[in-house]
């Protein structure tokens, strides 16, 4: 059985990077796939990889991660426009991140605006 957990942006918006990563990893280690509204910053992604590596053991083999949507590397004007739109429309964050345990997700293909998630045969 495939279990998904949706995390709205509001649930992580006020967390520190360390807390965000701890939360995400805890869910991934419980064999759930996370659909996160918005994106982690690139430094948070690097931190997630570091923490994932520290957590690898006999049962936990790591994660698969994929993000689509606006990245932090976009230019200043675009960032301001997006920020204003979010403020006026009350939108949390643009983009979507999928994170899941490598024991369940075989591969996530991103091409550039669509995501294909391939799962393993779960016994």
């Amino acid at each position, binding site marked *: 059985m495939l279990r998904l957990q949706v995390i709205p942006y509001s649930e992580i918006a006020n967390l520190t990077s360390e807390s965000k990563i701890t939360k995400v990893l805890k869910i991934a280690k419980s064999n759930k796939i996370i659909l996160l509204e918005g994106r982690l910053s*690139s430094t948070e992604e690097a931190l997630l*990889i570091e923490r994932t590596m*520290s957590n690898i053991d006999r049962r936990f083999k790591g994660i698969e991660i994929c993000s689509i949507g606006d990245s932090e590397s976009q230019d200043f004007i675009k960032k301001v426009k997006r920020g204003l739109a979010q403020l006026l429309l009350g939108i949390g964050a643009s983009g979507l991140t999928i994170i899941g345990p490598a024991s369940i997700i075989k591969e996530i293909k991103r091409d550039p605006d669509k995501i294909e998630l391939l799962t393993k045969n779960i016994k």
Partner: protein
Amino acid sequence: MGFFDYLKSILKIFQIKKTVRLGLYGPVNAGKSSLANKISLDWLGEEMSEVSKIPHETREIKVKERVKIKSNGKELDFNLIDTPGIATKVDYEEFLKFKMSKTEAKKRAKEATQGVIEAIKWLENVDCVLVVLDATENPYDQVNVTIIGNLAARNIPVLIVANKVDLKSANIKRIESAFPQYNVVGISALKGTNIEDFYKELFKTVK
């Protein structure tokens, strides 16, 4: 000669030549160590890293100091830093396919996870980075995005090296469209294809 030219030439005499700490980053099995070997062989006459088809062959940072590279009449000193491939998962069972014993595979997996952590920590210690990508693979892999995003956040100059262009399925255009804000140079580190262009692009990136 004007006063300022005179001053410049005096300063040049006393100028301490800066050594550029050049990091080679990228996903697993993209050819970072093959490129490090090619550069080291070209300018020092010796290789610096072991290469293998088994993933995670490089599991610790390897540094080759004072590599003097010349291109287009210019010369720069580099410290070459070959890093373990960045990955989000490591499964010792993958290594068993390469006829390793279970003990060896588990040891390799443990070392590989430490290597990834070390590679990320070393982002603090580089002045310029070659992001080495396998031109036959999908460039939109999140690991590539994460590496390049982290370098951008630190304002570290990046040259993307599309390796393995000698293979039929190589697609440089796809890498260029995935990372349009970066220069991409296609090479084959193993065969030495287009290596002169690579050195020119490297000097442009370092400035």
